[in-house]
């Protein structure tokens, strides 16, 4: 069943690329959307088959592949990966729907989109370190191409920067995995926690450090974040949706699954430092977002801040905070995707994202009132207003981490307040006041502004995402039920490992 989540997008990508005849962009897009709908349905089937009361991996399936290398095709799912698989299915579909402007090389574009979708599924489902690494690598090149070919004016620079950073990230992760095999002497690359008896604390900290930097680049955490705003600025809207909504989650997922999952004891050692790192990242991302003029860069920096919450929650590693981390990954995925779609709609209509130029876009007759209203919903959710997904996840993270790391949690809460600051600046500048698309004085400038109307069908993905954000905010129990047992199990790892010398039996 899980293999279907790989086969549909990857074989679909092959089919889209190789299908004979001269299909136009519209038909290829429709085919990609159909494939992604099938993928979403397959993901929902996994959800139905999933038993949330089981703590460990379930629905395992696999094949022996290269046994001598320790590379096995083994897929499994648990309460940590299932929500992310669902988010991936939903956002890839949204990205394909939002790709209506793609005219150049549509086969390649939608093929790459499907490859990314399949690779991300593979990374979330992999029950083998090398298999995870393969899928983690597999997603890099398509994304690099999506930025480099269909990006903005400065796309070559941004795409190369993205590639270099994430390639270094991949090398560090591979290094850690190989180092683990080398130091423990067992090359089975399974997801088995390491206990102090197997490996000295020094070696554990070293390997965990490599993973932290590797995944820290991907998340991204300060100071490894600089590729992200550039990549977002140059990427087209659907690619930004994927990047923020899905691909960054590979970093946090890796941190939880491999950082905390493989090295629970070393993790506990480093946790106070990680919490401070998280707080610094949150504050830096928020303060940098305040200083932005470009709406897209502002949303990109907000990602840096909001992904910091996940590190804080992971550092605290209490049952509540880890549940909060899952919530934060899901809600950030949905909210940032929504915000990027809306920024894209504004850019499509006005030709600019400059906050010094845009004003009054909420104007009911000549502006973008629905886009503006959804933007207000999105920023309220991002700022953590009650009733939205952002509130639940931030509350769980802060509540779960406060007793463990009070200072870092309080500093992160300041970052949450700063979210309200920069997003209110965005809404106030771009959406309130007299409609204007000019940097000049509105009283003397040209006032007859003619923006094209954004059609309601084009806004359906945004409306659906906003609906999901509110649904999670009002009914968090649904998501909580899926993940609670799994995150509680992860939180207990350090204590279990300490009482079970030799490890491996978990």
């Amino acid at each position, binding site marked *: 069943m899980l293999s279907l989540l790989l086969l549909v997008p990857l074989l679909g990508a092959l089919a889209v690329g190789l299908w004979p005849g001269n299909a136009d962009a519209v038909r290829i897009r429709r085919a990609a959307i159909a494939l992604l709908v099938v993928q979403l349905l397959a993901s929902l089937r996994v959800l139905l088959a999933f038993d949330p009361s089981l703590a460990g991996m379930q629905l395992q399936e696999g094949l022996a592949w290269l046994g001598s290398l320790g590379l096995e095709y083994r897929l499994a799912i648990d309460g940590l990966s299932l929500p992310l698989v669902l988010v991936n299915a939903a956002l890839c579909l949204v990205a394909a729907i939002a790709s209506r402007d793609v005219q150049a090389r549509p086969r390649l574009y939608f093929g790459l989109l499907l490859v990314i979708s399949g690779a991300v599924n593979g990374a979330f489902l992999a029950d083998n370190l090398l298999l995870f690494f393969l899928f983690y690598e597999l997603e890099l090149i398509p994304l690099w191409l999506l930025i480099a070919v269909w990006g903005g004016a400065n796309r070559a620079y941004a795409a190369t920067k993205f590639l270099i950073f994430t390639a270094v990230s991949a090398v560090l992760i591979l290094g850690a995995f190989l180092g683990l095999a080398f130091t423990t002497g067992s090359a089975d690359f399974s997801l088995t926690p390491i206990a102090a008896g197997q490996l000295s604390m020094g070696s554990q900290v070293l390997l965990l450090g490599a993973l932290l930097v590797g995944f820290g680049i991907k998340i991204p955490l300060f100071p490894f974040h600089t590729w992200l705003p550039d990549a977002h600025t140059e990427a087209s809207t659907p690619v930004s949706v994927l990047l923020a909504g899905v691909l960054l989650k590979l970093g946090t997922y890796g941190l939880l699954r491999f950082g905390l999952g493989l090295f629970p004891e070393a993790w506990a050692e480093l946790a106070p430092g990680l919490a401070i790192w998280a707080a610094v990242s949150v504050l830096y991302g928020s303060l940098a977002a305040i200083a932005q003029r470009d709406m897209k860069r502002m949303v990109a920096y907000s990602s840096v801040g909001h992904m910091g919450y996940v590190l804080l929650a992971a550092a605290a590693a209490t049952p509540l905070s880890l549940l909060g981390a899952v919530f934060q990954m899901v809600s950030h995925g949905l909210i940032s995707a929504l915000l990027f779609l809306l920024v894209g709609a504004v850019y499509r*209509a006005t030709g600019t994202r400059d906050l010094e130029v845009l004003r009054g876009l909420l104007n009911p007759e*000549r502006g973008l009132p629905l886009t503006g209203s959804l933007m207000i919903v999105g920023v309220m959710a991002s700022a953590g207003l009650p009733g939205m997904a952002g509130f639940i996840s931030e509350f769980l993270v802060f509540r779960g981490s406060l007793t463990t790391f009070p200072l870092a949690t309080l500093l992160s809460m300041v970052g949450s307040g700063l979210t309200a600051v920069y997003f209110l600046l965005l809404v106030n500048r771009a959406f309130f006041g007299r409609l204007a698309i000019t940097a000049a004085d509105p*009283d003397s400038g040209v006032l007859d502004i003619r923006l094209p109307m954004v059609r309601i069908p084009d806004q359906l993905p945004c409306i659906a995402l906003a609906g999901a954000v509110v649904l999670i905010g009002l009914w968090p129990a649904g998501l909580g039920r899926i993940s609670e047992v799994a995150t509680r199990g992860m939180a207990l790892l350090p204590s279990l490992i300490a009482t079970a010398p030799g490890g491996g039996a978990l």
Partner: protein
Amino acid sequence: MAHPPLLQRTVANPTADTTELQRRLLAGETLLADTADHRLEVVGVLESYGEVLDAYSINLIFQAEHQFLNPFPVFRFLDGDLNPAKIWRHLYHDRINFEYAEYCQKAMFWHGTGGLDAYLDSDAFLANCRTIINRKRRRDPLLALLHPLFPGFLVELIRSAATTHALGQFWRVMSDLFLDLARAERNGTVRSIEAIVEFIKAGLVAAAANPITYAVEIHGERQWVLPPQAQLTFLVDVAVPYVEAVFLRGMPFLGTVSFNAQVQQISPDQASFTYGALYADPLPTMGAGIPPSLLMQDMYRHLPEALHQWYRERNRGEGDVRVKICQSFQKAMFCVTNAAIRGTFPHALSSPHPAEQGANAAYAAAWATRLAKGRTDCLGPEA
């Protein structure tokens, strides 16, 4: 991917500066460029405006005559017809927004720009008021109580009623004139912006000396509020103050350019106000039911089909139709102002005498200075 900027901007009209406006006025040229689109917009919007003014005029005259000295005129917009269906339509807002007519009346009353207003402060008027109040108090205990407590209150209500009636009489003439203009355009006698301006000027000149009078009936007896002896006339005592108060000054309502008195954006000098129809922002800014959007809604209900179709084909069609109506309305109001200025030059434009030419030039310059601050970006051929 690179998106082409889809934003279209209208280039600012270079004729907007004062000297160009003055030159046009003195040369007898029209302020509004003569294009087929402009003709359709101006005639069409004035036709719907004529229909709306007809309703406004009837209602204002009804209010002044039948709601006279009524401190709580709850049903004043119903023209005396109190059947439940009409009340329902009123509450459901399937109706003309008479509030806009009131706004114009209040603007005239508050600015008090000469003519009629001077008479409202005269001893003769106060004497009329005393007679009226004394008669009215006899059978009205509320007024009998109010008048000694607030001696200025009822007088002020009568002044307001007088302005209301005078504005009703003014709009009666203008409504007929604008509907005649639409008929003349259909007959083919009006084929250019120049002809439109001349048609309006001729109408204003013809009505210039019409007397403005107002009497109310109290307990079966007719009492003059604005008697014929006051010799108030259409052009000087009502039309000119109206243009000053409504076209130019207006009141700083939400929805006009300036909406923030707290940051000192509103001049303490009433005479330098620029919130009138010629300055109004066609885009409503975060507010509802505010002038001139009420007027735009009223005109929307009476748009001639040709103009409505023209709006549907442009920009967002019905989506921003009120903005487009306002833009057309401002073009039309520049034509009306143009006609009024032509009709009130101190001397003939063809006069060979340097002194008279100088007086005309000064008159044109004074107007041009005020108009240049208005929404002149609608005047060019490309607008």
